[in-house]
Protein backbone atom coordinates (compact mmCIF):
# COMPACT_ATOMS: atom_id res chain seq x y z
CA UNK A 1 0.00 0.00 0.00
CA UNK A 2 2.91 2.34 0.75
CA UNK A 3 4.00 2.23 -2.91
CA UNK A 4 0.47 2.70 -4.20
CA UNK A 5 0.27 5.51 -6.76
CA UNK A 6 -2.38 8.15 -5.94
CA UNK A 7 -5.11 8.57 -8.57
CA UNK A 8 -5.02 11.55 -10.95
CA UNK A 9 -7.03 14.54 -9.74
CA UNK A 10 -9.99 15.84 -11.80
CA UNK A 11 -10.27 19.32 -13.31
CA UNK A 12 -12.26 22.40 -12.32
CA UNK A 13 -15.29 21.36 -14.37
CA UNK A 14 -15.71 18.29 -12.15
CA UNK A 15 -15.31 20.38 -8.99
CA UNK A 16 -17.95 22.82 -10.27
CA UNK A 17 -20.32 19.87 -10.70
CA UNK A 18 -19.70 18.83 -7.07
CA UNK A 19 -20.29 22.46 -6.02
CA UNK A 20 -23.68 22.42 -7.80
CA UNK A 21 -24.61 19.13 -6.11
CA UNK A 22 -23.75 20.62 -2.70
CA UNK A 23 -25.90 23.69 -3.40
CA UNK A 24 -28.75 21.45 -4.50
CA UNK A 25 -28.48 19.45 -1.27
CA UNK A 26 -28.73 22.68 0.76
CA UNK A 27 -31.87 23.53 -1.24
CA UNK A 28 -33.34 20.11 -0.40
CA UNK A 29 -32.52 20.64 3.28
CA UNK A 30 -34.39 23.96 3.35
CA UNK A 31 -37.36 22.45 1.45
CA UNK A 32 -37.56 19.55 3.94
CA UNK A 33 -37.44 22.00 6.85
CA UNK A 34 -40.57 23.77 5.61
CA UNK A 35 -42.36 20.51 4.70
CA UNK A 36 -43.44 20.20 8.36
CA UNK A 37 -41.93 16.76 8.95
CA UNK A 38 -41.88 15.31 12.48
CA UNK A 39 -38.80 16.53 14.37
CA UNK A 40 -37.12 13.12 14.50
CA UNK A 41 -37.64 12.50 10.77
CA UNK A 42 -36.37 15.99 9.92
CA UNK A 43 -33.28 15.48 12.09
CA UNK A 44 -32.55 12.11 10.47
CA UNK A 45 -32.98 13.58 6.97
CA UNK A 46 -30.85 16.67 7.65
CA UNK A 47 -28.08 14.65 9.30
CA UNK A 48 -28.02 12.16 6.43
CA UNK A 49 -27.77 14.97 3.87
CA UNK A 50 -25.05 16.70 5.91
CA UNK A 51 -23.03 13.47 6.02
CA UNK A 52 -23.37 13.15 2.22
CA UNK A 53 -22.18 16.77 1.84
CA UNK A 54 -19.25 16.15 4.17
CA UNK A 55 -18.36 12.97 2.28
CA UNK A 56 -18.33 14.80 -1.06
CA UNK A 57 -16.28 17.63 0.43
CA UNK A 58 -13.71 15.41 2.11
CA UNK A 59 -13.29 12.99 -0.79
CA UNK A 60 -13.27 15.52 -3.67
CA UNK A 61 -12.65 19.08 -2.40
CA UNK A 62 -10.08 17.88 0.14
CA UNK A 63 -8.75 15.29 -2.33
CA UNK A 64 -8.83 12.38 0.13
CA UNK A 65 -10.06 10.16 -2.71
CA UNK A 66 -6.85 10.90 -4.61
CA UNK A 67 -4.46 10.19 -1.72
CA UNK A 68 -3.18 6.78 -0.73
CA UNK A 69 -5.88 4.70 0.92
CA UNK A 70 -3.73 4.44 4.06
CA UNK A 71 -4.49 8.10 4.81
CA UNK A 72 -8.26 7.52 4.64
CA UNK A 73 -8.08 4.41 6.82
CA UNK A 74 -5.87 6.13 9.37
CA UNK A 75 -8.05 9.25 9.74
CA UNK A 76 -11.71 8.60 9.09
CA UNK A 77 -12.38 5.51 11.25
CA UNK A 78 -10.63 7.29 14.13
CA UNK A 79 -12.96 10.28 13.85
CA UNK A 80 -16.03 8.07 13.48
CA UNK A 81 -15.00 6.13 16.61
CA UNK A 82 -14.66 9.36 18.63
CA UNK A 83 -18.05 10.63 17.42
CA UNK A 84 -19.73 7.29 18.22
CA UNK A 85 -18.26 7.44 21.73
CA UNK A 86 -19.68 10.98 22.13
CA UNK A 87 -23.05 9.56 21.18
CA UNK A 88 -23.21 7.93 24.62
CA UNK A 89 -24.40 11.29 26.04
CA UNK A 90 -27.90 10.87 24.66
CA UNK A 91 -29.46 8.49 27.24
CA UNK A 92 -28.39 10.90 29.99
CA UNK A 93 -30.10 13.81 28.18
CA UNK A 94 -33.40 11.88 28.17
CA UNK A 95 -32.91 11.03 31.88
CA UNK A 96 -32.43 14.76 32.62
CA UNK A 97 -35.69 15.59 30.82
CA UNK A 98 -37.62 12.95 32.80
CA UNK A 99 -36.21 14.31 36.07
CA UNK A 100 -37.79 17.71 35.29
CA UNK A 101 -41.31 16.24 35.23
Amino acid sequence: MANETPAAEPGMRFYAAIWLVLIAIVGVEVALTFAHLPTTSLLAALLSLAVIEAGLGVMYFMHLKYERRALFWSLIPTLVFVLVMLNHLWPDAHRLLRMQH
Partner: protein
Amino acid sequence: MSGSDHALTMGHGAALEASPYGIQSKKLVMWLFIIADAATFGAILFGYGYLRVGSADWTRPFHFTPTILNGMVMTLVLLTSSLSMLAAVAAAKAGQRAASARWILVTAGLGVVFAVLHLREWFGLIAEHWSPSNNPLGGSPLVGASFFSITGLHLLHVIGGVVALSVVALKYARGHLEPGHVETTGLYWHFVDLVWMFVFPLVYLMNVG
Protein backbone atom coordinates in the same frame (compact mmCIF):
# COMPACT_ATOMS: atom_id res chain seq x y z
CA MET B 1 29.79 14.76 9.38
CA SER B 2 26.55 16.73 9.45
CA GLY B 3 23.46 15.60 11.33
CA SER B 4 21.68 14.48 8.18
CA ASP B 5 24.76 12.62 6.89
CA HIS B 6 25.03 10.90 10.25
CA ALA B 7 21.38 9.88 10.07
CA LEU B 8 21.88 8.47 6.57
CA THR B 9 25.00 6.48 7.40
CA MET B 10 23.82 5.27 10.81
CA GLY B 11 20.42 4.25 9.50
CA HIS B 12 17.99 6.40 11.45
CA GLY B 13 14.62 5.21 10.23
CA ALA B 14 12.99 8.65 10.08
CA ALA B 15 15.61 9.92 7.64
CA LEU B 16 15.46 6.93 5.32
CA GLU B 17 11.94 5.61 5.49
CA ALA B 18 9.36 6.95 3.02
CA SER B 19 6.09 8.35 4.39
CA PRO B 20 3.41 5.64 4.36
CA TYR B 21 0.99 8.29 3.13
CA GLY B 22 3.19 9.75 0.39
CA ILE B 23 2.38 13.34 1.35
CA GLN B 24 4.33 16.27 2.76
CA SER B 25 4.58 16.39 6.55
CA LYS B 26 2.77 19.79 6.63
CA LYS B 27 -0.20 18.24 4.86
CA LEU B 28 -0.27 15.27 7.24
CA VAL B 29 -0.12 17.62 10.24
CA MET B 30 -3.02 19.65 8.80
CA TRP B 31 -5.05 16.46 8.37
CA LEU B 32 -4.36 15.50 12.00
CA PHE B 33 -5.41 19.00 13.13
CA ILE B 34 -8.59 18.75 11.05
CA ILE B 35 -9.54 15.40 12.58
CA ALA B 36 -8.96 16.78 16.09
CA ASP B 37 -10.94 19.93 15.27
CA ALA B 38 -13.74 17.86 13.76
CA ALA B 39 -13.95 15.98 17.06
CA THR B 40 -14.14 19.35 18.86
CA PHE B 41 -17.04 20.50 16.68
CA GLY B 42 -18.60 17.06 17.06
CA ALA B 43 -18.41 17.43 20.85
CA ILE B 44 -19.97 20.90 20.86
CA LEU B 45 -22.75 19.76 18.49
CA PHE B 46 -23.43 16.69 20.64
CA GLY B 47 -23.48 19.01 23.67
CA TYR B 48 -26.02 21.21 21.88
CA GLY B 49 -28.17 18.17 21.18
CA TYR B 50 -27.91 17.12 24.81
CA LEU B 51 -29.02 20.56 26.02
CA ARG B 52 -31.84 20.64 23.51
CA VAL B 53 -33.25 17.23 24.41
CA GLY B 54 -32.77 17.95 28.12
CA SER B 55 -34.60 21.33 28.02
CA ALA B 56 -38.38 21.08 28.14
CA ASP B 57 -38.83 24.79 27.28
CA TRP B 58 -36.63 24.92 24.18
CA THR B 59 -37.78 27.65 21.76
CA ARG B 60 -37.45 27.74 17.96
CA PRO B 61 -36.80 31.39 17.13
CA PHE B 62 -35.94 31.30 13.42
CA HIS B 63 -38.11 32.01 10.36
CA PHE B 64 -37.41 31.90 6.62
CA THR B 65 -36.83 35.64 6.58
CA PRO B 66 -34.46 36.95 7.64
CA THR B 67 -32.52 34.13 9.32
CA ILE B 68 -32.82 31.13 6.99
CA LEU B 69 -32.56 33.23 3.83
CA ASN B 70 -29.45 34.89 5.24
CA GLY B 71 -28.08 31.46 6.18
CA MET B 72 -28.66 30.19 2.63
CA VAL B 73 -26.73 33.14 1.21
CA MET B 74 -23.93 32.51 3.74
CA THR B 75 -23.84 28.83 2.71
CA LEU B 76 -23.65 29.78 -0.98
CA VAL B 77 -20.81 32.21 -0.25
CA LEU B 78 -18.86 29.60 1.73
CA LEU B 79 -19.37 26.86 -0.88
CA THR B 80 -18.24 29.25 -3.61
CA SER B 81 -15.15 30.11 -1.60
CA SER B 82 -14.25 26.40 -1.57
CA LEU B 83 -14.49 26.40 -5.37
CA SER B 84 -12.20 29.45 -5.64
CA MET B 85 -9.77 27.74 -3.24
CA LEU B 86 -9.72 24.71 -5.56
CA ALA B 87 -8.87 27.07 -8.43
CA ALA B 88 -6.04 28.52 -6.33
CA VAL B 89 -4.60 25.05 -5.63
CA ALA B 90 -4.92 24.04 -9.31
CA ALA B 91 -3.13 27.24 -10.40
CA ALA B 92 -0.39 26.69 -7.81
CA LYS B 93 0.19 23.12 -9.02
CA ALA B 94 0.34 24.44 -12.61
CA GLY B 95 3.06 26.91 -11.55
CA GLN B 96 0.82 29.96 -12.09
CA ARG B 97 1.91 31.85 -9.00
CA ALA B 98 0.09 35.17 -9.66
CA ALA B 99 -3.18 33.47 -10.64
CA SER B 100 -3.03 31.26 -7.57
CA ALA B 101 -2.47 34.27 -5.27
CA ARG B 102 -5.45 36.05 -6.88
CA TRP B 103 -7.73 33.03 -6.32
CA ILE B 104 -6.57 32.79 -2.70
CA LEU B 105 -7.47 36.46 -2.21
CA VAL B 106 -10.88 35.84 -3.83
CA THR B 107 -11.37 33.03 -1.30
CA ALA B 108 -10.36 35.30 1.57
CA GLY B 109 -12.74 38.00 0.24
CA LEU B 110 -15.63 35.54 0.23
CA GLY B 111 -14.65 34.59 3.79
CA VAL B 112 -14.95 38.27 4.74
CA VAL B 113 -18.42 38.43 3.12
CA PHE B 114 -19.46 35.36 5.14
CA ALA B 115 -18.17 36.93 8.37
CA VAL B 116 -19.93 40.24 7.69
CA LEU B 117 -23.25 38.48 6.98
CA HIS B 118 -22.78 36.43 10.13
CA LEU B 119 -21.99 39.44 12.33
CA ARG B 120 -24.95 41.35 10.86
CA GLU B 121 -27.17 38.45 11.89
CA TRP B 122 -25.61 38.38 15.36
CA PHE B 123 -26.16 42.11 15.88
CA GLY B 124 -29.77 41.72 14.74
CA LEU B 125 -30.33 38.99 17.35
CA ILE B 126 -28.55 41.00 20.04
CA ALA B 127 -30.83 43.97 19.20
CA GLU B 128 -33.77 41.63 19.90
CA HIS B 129 -32.18 40.98 23.33
CA TRP B 130 -30.80 37.55 22.51
CA SER B 131 -27.60 36.74 24.38
CA PRO B 132 -25.76 33.65 25.70
CA SER B 133 -27.70 34.08 28.94
CA ASN B 134 -31.04 35.52 27.79
CA ASN B 135 -33.96 34.25 25.73
CA PRO B 136 -36.37 37.13 24.91
CA LEU B 137 -39.07 34.57 24.00
CA GLY B 138 -39.13 33.38 27.62
CA GLY B 139 -37.87 29.83 27.04
CA SER B 140 -34.58 28.22 27.93
CA PRO B 141 -31.62 30.65 27.84
CA LEU B 142 -29.56 27.69 26.60
CA VAL B 143 -30.96 28.43 23.09
CA GLY B 144 -28.86 31.59 22.93
CA ALA B 145 -25.94 30.02 24.76
CA SER B 146 -25.65 27.13 22.30
CA PHE B 147 -26.33 29.31 19.23
CA PHE B 148 -23.67 31.91 20.05
CA SER B 149 -21.17 29.25 21.19
CA ILE B 150 -21.40 27.05 18.09
CA THR B 151 -21.66 29.81 15.50
CA GLY B 152 -19.03 31.84 17.38
CA LEU B 153 -16.55 28.95 17.31
CA HIS B 154 -17.17 28.53 13.59
CA LEU B 155 -16.87 32.28 12.98
CA LEU B 156 -13.51 32.28 14.78
CA HIS B 157 -12.36 29.55 12.39
CA VAL B 158 -13.52 31.65 9.41
CA ILE B 159 -11.74 34.78 10.65
CA GLY B 160 -8.58 32.77 11.39
CA GLY B 161 -8.83 31.26 7.92
CA VAL B 162 -9.18 34.68 6.27
CA VAL B 163 -6.01 35.85 8.04
CA ALA B 164 -4.13 32.68 7.08
CA LEU B 165 -5.31 32.90 3.45
CA SER B 166 -4.24 36.55 3.20
CA VAL B 167 -0.78 35.81 4.60
CA VAL B 168 -0.32 32.78 2.33
CA ALA B 169 -1.50 34.75 -0.74
CA LEU B 170 0.99 37.56 -0.12
CA LYS B 171 3.90 35.26 0.74
CA TYR B 172 3.15 32.89 -2.14
CA ALA B 173 2.96 35.79 -4.61
CA ARG B 174 6.41 36.95 -3.41
CA GLY B 175 7.87 33.47 -3.85
CA HIS B 176 8.37 32.76 -0.15
CA LEU B 177 6.09 29.70 -0.14
CA GLU B 178 5.60 26.66 -2.39
CA PRO B 179 2.42 25.04 -3.78
CA GLY B 180 2.26 22.62 -0.84
CA HIS B 181 1.54 25.56 1.47
CA VAL B 182 -1.38 26.64 -0.73
CA GLU B 183 -2.79 23.11 -0.76
CA THR B 184 -2.42 22.75 3.02
CA THR B 185 -4.17 26.09 3.65
CA GLY B 186 -6.88 24.98 1.24
CA LEU B 187 -7.45 21.82 3.29
CA TYR B 188 -8.17 23.98 6.33
CA TRP B 189 -10.54 26.23 4.39
CA HIS B 190 -12.52 23.29 2.98
CA PHE B 191 -12.81 21.93 6.51
CA VAL B 192 -14.30 25.23 7.72
CA ASP B 193 -16.79 24.96 4.84
CA LEU B 194 -17.69 21.36 5.77
CA VAL B 195 -18.30 22.23 9.42
CA TRP B 196 -20.88 24.78 8.25
CA MET B 197 -22.64 21.95 6.37
CA PHE B 198 -23.51 20.58 9.83
CA VAL B 199 -24.01 23.89 11.66
CA PHE B 200 -26.56 25.26 9.18
CA PRO B 201 -29.02 22.32 9.31
CA LEU B 202 -28.59 21.48 13.00
CA VAL B 203 -28.44 24.97 14.53
CA TYR B 204 -30.54 26.96 12.03
CA LEU B 205 -32.96 24.65 10.20
CA MET B 206 -33.78 22.55 13.27
CA ASN B 207 -34.74 25.76 15.09
CA VAL B 208 -37.29 27.04 12.57
CA GLY B 209 -40.46 27.93 14.43
